[in-house]
């Protein structure tokens, strides 16, 4: 399974990076979502997968005995998902505001940076 998931993750990375290379900010944001998913799956895969067996201790027991899925990457991913989501929302609002100002989401419209170095 790791083999196939690794290929999928690579594919997701490729798709995400491809989106980043497009001239549209919304597509860039979309690419970042894809990259977020790719990263989460990477973390999920990385320390070995376990079918079934969620890391929940059965009621009344003191400890969980193997086999069970590694809870550590899950905790990492949960944290990462939330962080990604928060920052993505911020980015989208920025895109939204910038588009209101410029009327487009094309990155080529974002060139006021050059204003003074042309002189």
């Amino acid at each position, binding site marked *: *399974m790791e*083999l*196939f998931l690794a*290929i999928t*993750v*690579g*594919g*997701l*990375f*490729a*798709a*995400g*990076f*491809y989106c980043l*290379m497009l*001239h549209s900010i*919304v*597509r860039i*944001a*979309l690419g970042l*979502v*894809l990259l977020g998913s790719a990263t989460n*799956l990477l973390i*999920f*895969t990385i*320390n070995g997968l376990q*079918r*079934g067996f*969620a*890391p*929940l*201790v059965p009621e009344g027991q003191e*400890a*969980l005995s*193997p086999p*069970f*899925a*590694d809870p*550590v990457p*899950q*905790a990492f991913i*949960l*944290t990462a*998902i*939330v962080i990604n*989501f*928060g*920052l*993505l929302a*911020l980015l989208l*609002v*920025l895109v*939204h*505001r910038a588009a*209101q100002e410029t009327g487009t*989401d094309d990155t*080529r419209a974002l060139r*006021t*940076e050059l204003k003074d*170095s042309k002189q």
Partner: protein
Amino acid sequence: MACCLLVMALCIAFFVPFIAAALAVLITRLFKSWAGWVLALFPAGLAVWFGAQVPAGVQGEVPSLTLPWMPDLGIDFALRLDGLSLLMALLITGLGTLVVIYAGRYLVHHEVLGRFYGWLLLFMGGMLGIVLADNTLLLFVCWEVTTFSSFILIGFEHKEDAARESAQRALLITALGGQSLLVGLLLMGDEVGTLSISGTIATSDAVRDSPRYLAILLLVLGGAFTKSAQMPFHTWLPGAMTAPTPVSAYLHSATMVKAGVFLLARLSPVLGGTPPWETILTLVGTMTMVLGALLALGHTDLKLVLAYATVSVLGALVMLLGQGTAASIQAMVTFLTAHALYKGTLFLVAGSVDHETGTRDVAHLSGLRKRLPMTAAASAAASLSMMGLPPLFGFVGKELIYEACLEGPGGWPLAMGATVGFGGMVAAALRVGVQPFAGKTFRASKPESKVHEAPPAMWVGPALLGAAGLVLGLVPWAIQPLLAMASVDIGGSQAGGLKLTLWHGVTPALGLSVGSLVIGGGLFALRQPVLKGLRALNLSNHGPERFYQASLSGLLKLSSSMTRVLQNGSLHQYIVVTLATFGGLLALAVVLRLGEWPRGVSKYVLSHEVVVLVGILAAAVLAVVSRSALTSILALGALGLAEALLYVFFGAPDLAMTQIVVQTLTVILFALVFSRFPVHPHEHRFRWWTAALPLAVGGLITWIILHVASTPSHTRLADFYATQSVPAGKGLNIVNVILVDFRAFDTLGEATVLATSGLGVYLLFRTRSQRKKRQV
């Protein structure tokens, strides 16, 4: 005890100019037009103190102190007052006193006179520090103090373009040399294991025998030559004449430009006496001397002529150091002193003439001696000294030079070169020191009645200096012990035994002296054709000057074109370069270190998992290639759901739940943003060559994941949590216990990010609606 007091006094002497600089603005404000006299007390006091040290110095007493300053870098606060230092210190403080008095009058109405004094005294402190320092880096620190204070002084009339231009040029050239010097000194320090100058001198063989000797020598010479305006670095000095005249007199003739010569003298026991040293110094020095003299004749501006003549003299001094014989060192020391006296005078005289008549172009000046008698007398004494006529001190110095050339390895050819150089100087002296004052007809830009003698503050300095040249010429033995001491400090005991006499008898040197006078007289007589010829040649605009201009504009061009290429405002390009860098580094690591095929990765897969994986990839591809925004968004949603399914299959229900919720919200957010503005139809078409880079990076990441996945999995952390979650964490859901207990700190940060972005979103929308409101 007495020794202790002496050392303390030395230490205080080091700081006096800095204290004076700090007080300058205040004192100027308090004493107004008397400020010059008051401030002059500081250098005057120092001069007296240094003068009082001469007898003890002659006895062989060398006060020194070493305080640890930055032992980690090997920098000590180390001072040492040997003969060479003493001579230089006397020149610096003595001339400094006169210049401070002079400037008080010269710039009396200037609105920022206080600041001017501050910078001038700061410079004096740096200069004094250079000559007193016994640690190469302390010397360097002071060296740079003189560099940037002279930058400000050159650009003192800063609203004028020429002043700023010259200040920048001086700074760039001398700072370039400074950097070179720094590296040289550091390398030298590493060779001998100390930065102490006297320590280095004691183990000088280590430097000369080192394989890095040549590099060290060249780097140090880079510093000395730029500071002392040797060819081809001389171009900053004539430009520096935009500084007020007192500054030129002080920095650009008597002190700062001598710093380079001083440094060479100081280090000649360490670096000198080798074939490269002799060759380079003699060659560069002679060339500078001759060219400087030549260039001096091509100008009629008093200060420019003096500046080029100074270049010429600096060349002579360097040439003498290159010879390295006892005689040449003695000649160097003597001539350095003579030059400081007469050149200081002539600059101050030029300032007075400019101040009183409103011009300093020789072509428009003559017959001033009646209106400016004191100035004229000082000028006469100084220019005679410059010409090397007896009974002035310049004559003593010049005779020594000829003798040294004849005796030294350079022999007759060098002596001839010196004669030609001095011939030029004679002509220059006639032009600046004699021509404006001589002649019957009065000529100046103002009517004769309006031109009168400069105020006392402005003639006392030149008069004293001129007189000093005369007195020392008549009684040279008065200064002989001091100069002898300095010679010994440069050339070792074999350079001792200096004998100064005014009359040597009829010697070959006297013949050369006469020769140079004849050449000089001839050049002066033919001054008009010479001037025309030299102007036609336009020497100062070729060679180094061109090079400086070209490299400056080349730098600016390089800079702006590089910025246009790199930081061109295109987010697309930024992303591509960033991605390419990432991919490139990954490829490097994979090619160099991780080339073998990953083994032992599980290939076992269930059919429903394959379906989900294919679904994920298909959704991703759809999201990427679809031209419809809606399709892309929906594909994103589908992708999230498929991902959640994977989490369910592999034992992560919390993850699945969160993933579904978050992905739903993401899709809603995208939909909202997309619905807000007309997304003009995306012209993007899927292109394989655009996809090559992302695919390569994705492939590399897959490759690395496979390698990681082929290592055995680690269960240490998971086992701990599985056994501790219930007893210690009081929770059955291990993932949740990790989030709120084992790694709650992460969650705290996560919550902060979330709250911050919520705040940001809210604020961004608010600013918009507020702006709308204001518009209404």
